[in-house]
């Protein structure tokens, strides 16, 4: 089963995402900010990274930039969890190297559909 | 019998645990009885009333023990291995309180109809007679029903009615 790295500073979102993905059979690792995520990504290659944008320490944009510097993560899909109000974040995210985005609020089914879209 | 009948029956009757003290029989609401234990040494509480024997450790909870003979101003007796402590619990405005009372011996359990309970005679001390629920005749014996809540929480002197002036014969 593909492994997914879920990054969000909100514990409830993280729990929801992890629960949903694990329920669908994915292997999931959690990180609460970009720094933590980057550390995990350096230890293991995940098949997909799902990251919030607004986070303390290292935000989602910075995380994508850093990930794209890693040889293992050049082509790994990175999805940003954005909200409508942060429209320019999509552009920023793309410029940083994000694959795509999921707009909050989303429900578990929407999340799974999008992930499956990407992972095929 | 319909279920309503059962309810009526149930609310009309109450079970009492009775015990003996100085040849008299007393009853307390059985629902207030948590357990019955043998007497054990207590740790005394400074400046407590003489009827508070002290406290014991009841599975991790500190429970005060009251000598009911002293509480009623009766002649105290030496405790013996058969001396019994009845652990009672009552709800008060400060929460549930658990306390033990030392009695001579446990007697019996009776189902008593409310209609059979008679008011206690006037004690000339209107305020402090709340601890008496009433008197009831069981098998030709007089049983004094006590109100556990008042018994455990009141700090006033409690005086038992003089039963000799009271004719138990006619219920």
């Amino acid at each position, binding site marked *: 089963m593909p492994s997914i790295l879920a990054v969000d500073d*909100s514990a409830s979102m993280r729990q929801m995402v992890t*629960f949903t993905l694990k329920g669908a059979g994915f292997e999931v690792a959690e990180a609460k900010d970009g720094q933590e995520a980057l550390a995990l990504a350096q230890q293991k290659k995940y098949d997909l990274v799902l990251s919030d944008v607004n986070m303390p320490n290292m935000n989602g944009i910075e995380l994508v930039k850093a990930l794209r510097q890693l040889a293992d993560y050049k082509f790994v899909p990175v999805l940003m969890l954005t909200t409508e109000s942060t429209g320019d974040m999509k552009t920023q995210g793309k410029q940083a190297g*994000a694959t795509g985005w999921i707009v*909050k609020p989303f429900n578990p089914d929407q999340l799974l559909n999008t992930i499956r879209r990407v992972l095929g | 019998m319909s279920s309503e009948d059962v309810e009526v029956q149930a609310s009309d009757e109450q079970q009492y645990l009775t015990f003996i003290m100085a040849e008299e029989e007393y009853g307390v609401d059985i629902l207030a009885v948590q357990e019955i234990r043998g007497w054990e040494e207590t740790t005394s509480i400074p400046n*407590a009333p003489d009827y508070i024997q002290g406290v014991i*450790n009841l599975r991790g909870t500190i429970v005060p023990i009251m000598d009911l003979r002293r509480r009623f101003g009766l002649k105290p007796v030496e405790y013996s291995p058969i001396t019994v402590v009845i652990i009672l619990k009552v709800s008060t405005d400060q929460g549930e309180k658990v*306390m033990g009372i030392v009695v001579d011996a446990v007697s019996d359990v009776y189902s008593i109809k409310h209609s059979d309970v008679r008011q206690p005679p006037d004690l000339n001390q209107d305020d402090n007679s709340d601890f008496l629920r009433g008197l009831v005749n069981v098998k030709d014996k007089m049983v004094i029903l006590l109100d556990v809540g008042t018994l455990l929480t009141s700090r006033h002197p409690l005086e038992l009615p003089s039963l000799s002036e009271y004719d138990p014969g006619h219920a």
Partner: protein
Amino acid sequence: MSVDLSQFHQVFFEESLEGLDIMEAQLLQLQAGSTDMEAVNTIFRAAHSIKGGAGTFGFADVAQFTHLVETLLDEIRAGQRPVTEHAIELFLQSVDVLRALLLALQQGERPDLSTAEQLKQELQKVLDSSAVPETASTDVVPAAAQSSAQGWLIEFRPDVDLLRTGNEPFRMVREICELVGQEAVTVEVDSSALVDIQTLDPTSCYLSWQIRIDCAIELSNLQEVFEWVEDECDIRYQALSQAHATRDVPELEAQPEAPVPAVEPEPLAVKEEVPAAAKRPVDASIRVSIDKVDSLINMVGELVITQSMLSQLGQDFDLSSLARLQQGLMQLEQNTRELQENVMKIRMLPISFAFSRFPRLVRDVGGQLGKQVQLKLMGEDTELDKTVMEKIGDPLVHLVRNSLDHGLETPEIRRQSGKSEVGHLTLNAYHQGGNIVIEISDDGAGLNEEKILRKAVERGLVSVPEALTPEEIHQLIFLPGFSTADTVSDISGRGVGMDVVKRNIQELNGSIEVQSEQGVGSTFTIRLPLTLAILDGQLVRVGNEKYVIPLVSIVESIQLEPRNMNHIAGSQPVMPLRDEYIPIVCMKDVFSLTKNTDLSDAMLVIVDGERGKVGLVVNELLGQQQVVIKSLEQNYERVPGISGATILGDGTVALIIDVTGLHKHSNERAA
């Protein structure tokens, strides 16, 4: 797959309420005109998280409200708006509104939306006043093209960088096939841009595609497929008319694999039902730092090692291994003790939890009273037990309100008395021995002794007023039925007096005292035990009874020399000790122990309480041990001089001495 989102609600509420606390704290530090974007960013982030969670977990009211707050914050963050006093005020009110909404939802109640609606209008007004236009929709597809055609021809020419964002052109083709069925899709690859193998960069994309779809489908469905790469490609959609179409139209709904429009945001329409499950008691929870948990796990590990070592020893024990057994038991004792200490530490939280509400309170109440107040918080990292923390909150609020209301003066009066117009209020916390001390001090008017005395006499609280020292007069404010406020004000005179504050603190085995100087200010000092659960005790024997004296209050223990005791007529005996006279309390007398107690071999335990040093006469010092404090009041009542009870190793009960209470009690008996 259906996921029950309500299982995440509790976490969402907790983190959102914490987020609000952070917002509030940051807002209170924010000054109008500030350019501290880090602070605004932190506030924004908290609002953003709340909104995201609220939307996801179905709390539409919260999401809608937070959306406005977030939008305004975003504009400030982007430098499109300055930080104004009005905005700060609106944000603070928003924090209140959100907190109320979340708390109601947490309780499973339908929240009252009236205040939220009002505030929403206010926020909207500010947003509307903006000169900054709403970001225009980036939708470039002409409305006419939205109509469905009988088929589409898509020219998809990605930028060379496309692959570097993790986007795989094959994915889009696959998705289209899933949408309309593979039979309806024809793909042609254009490799004309492919470069020489020597110059080829494998991470670049040189191919482009022509995708023909012979099937009716909404353009928006196709656009969604390419949504993520819109800006990194050249893409053209050409509608095919009936003539072009070669096949019948499959119903979109009939496609079992067809993904529902995946990322459409759920409309923020008000949902009627409250998503939280029916009224459910909120489990009290505590956040524990990972460090604390890790150290516990380590200790349990050590305990397990000791245990296995001991059980091995027990299997074939002979006297030669006695030393090892003793060593093992010692280790066990140490493990247990460490474990116990660390478990207790889990309950310890920094007092900043209790202090955090005061910046807001001081700001609001100060504003209400027209007083300028500068609040200083000190020792916020000082830790104390969670239970103590919860119970000390209300008394602290009362004391702070009291200082604001009665202590600090208005700017004019302060100016007249030669003080700075801004009053100072300081909350300070620190550890002292086994206690935590919290001081609330102000540089206000101080207690008015004359007025206090007059009131006390009026109320019959004192009979010989002239005999009182200033300190004794100050203590009068803690008497039941005393209140000096001429009119019961909205601020502190809510029918709750200092006597209630004092009682609440006493219930925590704590004490409160006041020091005050007229015209200079007042300091209220609260002393509380660090934890209500455990204490290091010295076991002593008095007659046949055993008592526990808190080790922290013991200064020293000496042999009692009865001939050194001075009996001053009508008062307590005292004993000279170095350059002090120590009052002597005979526990046997104070506790009315009737059993015969021989004092010839007695010990004197010198303890230090709030009332100074005092010597307790005991028969024997027994061991020292840590005891778990049990309540005596739970089933009995408060006993003067006793703070609680504990259960000793043999299962019997020993009472714990309240040093200050005992001293006081013995004074009263002597008087």
